[in-house]
């Protein structure tokens, strides 16, 4: 297919008034049977399909999506990408992902605008500073870039941040990961979709899985709103809806689905060149390439599938942003929205087997899985292809909740991101 994207193809197509561009992905009709069916065409599901094809040569794959691809949390996250997690298991997983991010635009031939503008995680209390040191030291020894910077250094890098020692919660310092940053969320889904499609994967939108078919203890396929699809293996990658799918397959998950909100300001000229996250004051902020301030909020305490949350969270978040950046007080909120995040008790994902044979699950990314999109797809593809987890995701099994081996990342994930 002569559908490569480049400045030259753009010029060539301009001559034909862009009438000759092919589809980024086919609108596939469901086939009766596949080797692998992936439920959920979010970034993670699409990446899984792509790496199944690319790394394992498995192309008889369908990704079924109840709505429009990339329309779940992939469409509504604040796009922060970093790998400075505390525990070895998480660090290796997220760093694997970050390495994939670094070549992703070229790999997919789709500009996902991965912008390594760095991420600051601010510390406002002595205990937060201890935790920051602990995490950055661990990152360094795990081969992950990062340093601890003081208020003076932050002030120089981010002049409009309130670094006054008289602030209610003065900034005592921060971790800084230079290779971290943001990416264009929709582009990530589209890029993976296009690349997976090019390798033969069927992406089937507007196709909701309504039941998971089993024979004995073994999965045989899925029932969907567009008919039954048989499959040798099935992977569930539905983020906030994981509990619903698990229920269809007859087991329970240690997951609660909660609304998580975000918002954007009206667009302004460049004013913030990096990403600022604060746990104690509770908000995080970056500026998109279009100029809006993209701001993330705390999670709603109650469970909900409504893709909207409570207004007081928005108020509290903007009070926090005003505290961090008093100059943004006169900026205006353009739009706020919510997603449904799948929260585990240890703030760590589940990637691996389920009680049903040949049925695998990838979920529990909660407030922070966008950054993992390529890495998650990569390890999950391995798991689906071989039937066994890759060493990188071995620790993220469902049965850790039974044995007590938890990788508790609450510290690193404390603020939703």
């Amino acid at each position, binding site marked *: 297919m002569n559908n490569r994207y480049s400045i030259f193809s753009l010029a060539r197509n301009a001559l034909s008034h862009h009438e000759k561009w092919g589809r980024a992905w086919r609108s596939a009709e469901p086939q009766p049977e596949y080797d692998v069916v992936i439920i959920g065409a979010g970034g993670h599901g699409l990446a899984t399909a792509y790496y199944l094809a690319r790394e394992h040569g498995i192309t008889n794959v369908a990704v079924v999506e109840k709505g429009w691809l990339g329309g779940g949390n992939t469409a509504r996250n604040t796009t922060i990408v970093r790998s400075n997690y505390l525990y070895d298991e998480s660090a290796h997983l997220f760093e694997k992902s970050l390495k994939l991010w670094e070549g992703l635009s070229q790999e997919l031939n789709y500009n996902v605008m991965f912008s390594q503008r760095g991420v600051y995680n601010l510390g406002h209390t002595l205990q937060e500073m201890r935790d920051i040191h602990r995490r950055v030291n661990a990152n360094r020894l795990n081969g992950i870039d990062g340093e601890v910077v003081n208020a003076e250094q932050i002030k120089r890098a981010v002049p409009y941040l309130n670094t006054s020692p008289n602030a209610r919660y003065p900034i005592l310092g921060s971790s800084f990961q230079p290779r971290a940053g943001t990416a264009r969320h929709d582009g990530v889904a589209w890029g993976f979709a296009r690349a997976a499609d090019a390798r033969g994967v069927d992406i089937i939108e507007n196709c909701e899985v309504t039941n998971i078919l089993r024979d004995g203890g073994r999965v045989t396929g899925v029932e969907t709103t567009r008919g039954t699809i048989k499959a040798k293996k099935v992977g569930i990658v539905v983020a906030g*809806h994981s*509990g619903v799918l698990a229920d269809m397959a007859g087991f329970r998950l240690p997951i609660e689905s909660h609304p998580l909100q975000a918002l954007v300001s009206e667009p302004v000229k460049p004013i913030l060149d990096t990403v600022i996250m604060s746990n104690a004051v509770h908000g995080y902020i970056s500026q998109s390439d279009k100029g809006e301030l993209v701001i993330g909020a705390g999670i709603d305490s109650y469970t909900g*599938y409504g893709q909207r949350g409570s207004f007081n969270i928005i108020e509290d978040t903007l009070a926090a942003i005003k505290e961090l950046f008093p100059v943004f007080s006169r900026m205006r909120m353009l739009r706020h929205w919510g997603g449904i995040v799948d929260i585990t008790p240890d703030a760590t994902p589940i990637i691996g087997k389920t009680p049903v044979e040949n049925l695998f699950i990838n979920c529990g990314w909660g407030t922070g899985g966008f950054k993992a999109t390529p890495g998650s797809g990569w390890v999950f593809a391995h798991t689906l292809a071989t039937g066994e987890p890759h060493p990188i995701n071995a620790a993220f099994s469902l049965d850790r909740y039974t044995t007590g081996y938890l990788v508790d990342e609450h510290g690193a994930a404390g603020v939703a991101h």
Partner: protein
Amino acid sequence: MFQIDCPWCGPRDQQEFSYAGEGGIQRPQDPSATTDAEWADYLFMRRNPRGMHHEQWRHVHGCGQFFQVTRHTVTYRIESIRRMGESAAAGGESS
């Protein structure tokens, strides 16, 4: 922003309440008699339904009482509210 009808104090703003998770989870009578799997079930596994959810809230900035709520997790509509210990049949007056 919910308005929750505290079974003691009447309707109040969500900000006076705290969410207290899925309701009706019984702590095993004799924890040491449970298997690891049963214990994990009690500890971590949740119904997390998309639809009607039986849950607990506490009027933490009011009468301090925990109570039971049946709420739809998509529409966020509250179907019924009961004091702890009241069965669905006895309460369920508000809708």
